């Protein structure tokens, strides 16, 4: 944390030396709290670095994003950040940006286009997130038997597939940990609560040792279900989930949740770092910059983490 602060301080210093750079940002929309936080943090990062950010909300439509990129190119911006709404259909517009020598950085999601059409992509590794969550559980339970129930994301979505895979990778060696029930909660609180209720019925509550939820919202719904069944989430059933939204820290502070893996909404920080290096001396970054999947537990002062996040727009 301290390190990144120092880094950004250095960047502010560096940026003030050069004339202010202009960056266009084509955001998907504001369909989730996480997305809103990403927008807020991108604006913050740009402000800190003295970058002039031009923001465009595509409202979930690719044609809006393509139009926005064309506008940015016409305006002659110094770089473009793109959080693509879909994976395909970007070749020609990225080609246009490339012809105009404007570097494009992809945020959060990938595209199906030749990788010489963009500078780099910043994103998290979904499998790795699942692995971090699994490793925490392996360490936490030690040698004791543990029957795990899993709340999956929307069936067939890539976060659901990858986060399930990562978790299984991590517990593969641990004979004492077994996933006994796995069902989709559609990434929503209602879904998490309803499915957890059925888990508690089906596995008679006290035989469940831990819950792994593919996102915090489902975990928060499940915590309510466990409470209402007269059990104590966080103690009777361990709760580990992914995303690190503010509300899960509140639950951790209350002792209801145990651990979460952060999917950082700060994609812009690493993106700006790469861009600044590129502007300075043409350094080509790696084609994929993986953000850190940091683990938070009850020991990490969850109340403070909640305070730090609650105004980001989650």
């Amino acid at each position, binding site marked *: 944390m301290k390190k990144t602060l120092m880094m950004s301080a250095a960047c502010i210093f560096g940026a003030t030396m050069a004339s202010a750079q202009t960056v266009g940002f084509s955001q998907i929309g504001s369909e989730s*709290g996480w997305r*809103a936080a990403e927008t807020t943090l991108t604006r913050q990062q740009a402000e800190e670095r003295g970058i002039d950010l031009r923001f465009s909300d595509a409202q979930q439509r690719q044609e809006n994003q393509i139009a926005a990129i064309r506008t940015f190119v016409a305006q002659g911006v110094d770089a473009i950040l793109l959080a693509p709404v879909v994976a395909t259909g970007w070749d020609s517009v990225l080609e246009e940006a490339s012809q105009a020598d404007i570097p494009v950085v992809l945020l959060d999601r990938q595209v199906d286009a030749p990788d010489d059409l963009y500078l780099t992509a910043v994103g998290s590794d979904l499998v790795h997130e699942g692995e971090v969550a699994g490793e925490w559980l392996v360490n936490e339970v030690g040698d004791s038997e543990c029957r795990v129930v899993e709340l999956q994301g929307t069936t067939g979505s890539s976060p659901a597939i990858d986060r399930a895979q990562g978790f299984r990778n991590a517990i593969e060696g641990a004979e004492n940990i077994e996933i006994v029930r796995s069902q989709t909660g*559609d*990434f929503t*609180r209602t879904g998490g609560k*309803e499915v957890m209720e059925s888990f508690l*019925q089906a596995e008679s509550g006290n035989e469940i040792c831990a819950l792994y939820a593919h996102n915090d919202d489902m975990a928060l*719904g499940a915590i309510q279900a466990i409470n*209402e069944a007269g059990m104590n989430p966080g103690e009777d059933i361990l709760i580990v989930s992914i995303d690190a939204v503010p509300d899960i820290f509140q639950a951790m502070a209350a002792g209801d949740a145990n651990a979460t893996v952060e999917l950082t909404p700060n994609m812009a920080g690493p993106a700006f770092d790469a861009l600044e290096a590129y502007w300075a001396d043409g350094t080509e970054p790696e084609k994929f910059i993986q953000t850190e999947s940091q683990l938070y537990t009850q020991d990490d002062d969850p109340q403070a983490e909640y305070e730090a996040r609650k105004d980001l727009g989650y």
Partner: protein
Amino acid sequence: MKRAFLRVLPQLLTLAALIALVTLFFPQFLSVDYQAGRLSGPVIDVLKRGAPVALLAVGMTLVIATRGIDLSVGTVMAITGAVAAWTISAGWGVGAAIILALAAGIACGVWNGCLVAIFGIQPIVATLILMTSGRGIAQLITEGRILTFTDPAFAWLGSGTLLGIPVPTILWIVAAIATVVLMRRTALGLLVEAIGINRAASALAGVNASVLLIAVYMASGLCAALAGIIATADIRGADANNAGLWLELDAILAVVIGGNSLLGGRFSVAASVLGAMIIQTIDTGILLAGFPSEYNLVIKAALVLVILVLQSPNLADHWHFVRENVRRRREPEPSPDVKS
């Protein structure tokens, strides 16, 4: 009374068959416990989880009886939930939250009803407008995030119990009974059916079709508001993106499983809420049976298909024919050899 029972008999039989089927995969399905002052068990879960769809189905039945359809109810749930959560977080209290949420639901109904009754827009189009734009309104209220609150009194509406019974269960049962009484103890039911079968002829007979149409969309909005309150209170937060998502389709399905014609006319609220319980039994049954989640929708689709085929009018004629034959065989005509 006997006629009313015969009307819902197919739904009761379907429900019984489904319960038998689920019990096959999950033997403890019918077990009910009483602990810490509340009933619990899979059946109780069905009665509680089915509350939103059952409430929506009550309103939807009336709308469909007028030959309309209300696609906006899922969105209205999101709007009213957001209104309730916002009111609670603003510190105005539970009473204000409920009143404002119900008012918002009625307002949505008036909007839909006016588009249909006064401007003559086709119901599916008129309600589609609110269905697609309404989530934006809900997001404006929640500022795009899940608006959470910690008011135990309001949360009680979603997850509390009264005499051991979950509050949402009580709410949908009361709403359904109140609607049945209102429709059948007054002339409303007859007038609604009349405009659904033939609006022009009803208007010529002096039925105030426009006012009635607006009223049924208001009722639908009110039911959606109740469902929205329950959904919001249940998770102690208003999720503008996901609250009530696609539930309008489940509500329509419940009405259809309830044997009501989408072409309007004769309706049965009781059969519709039974339809909602049938759908919830399928959903809960799938969760309890523990199949991989990839199979959820396939199993649900297959079961719904079977139910609708078994209830189809053509097959009903066939059943009637078979029954008649069986009856005839059981009561053989006085055979001549008895005499001889």
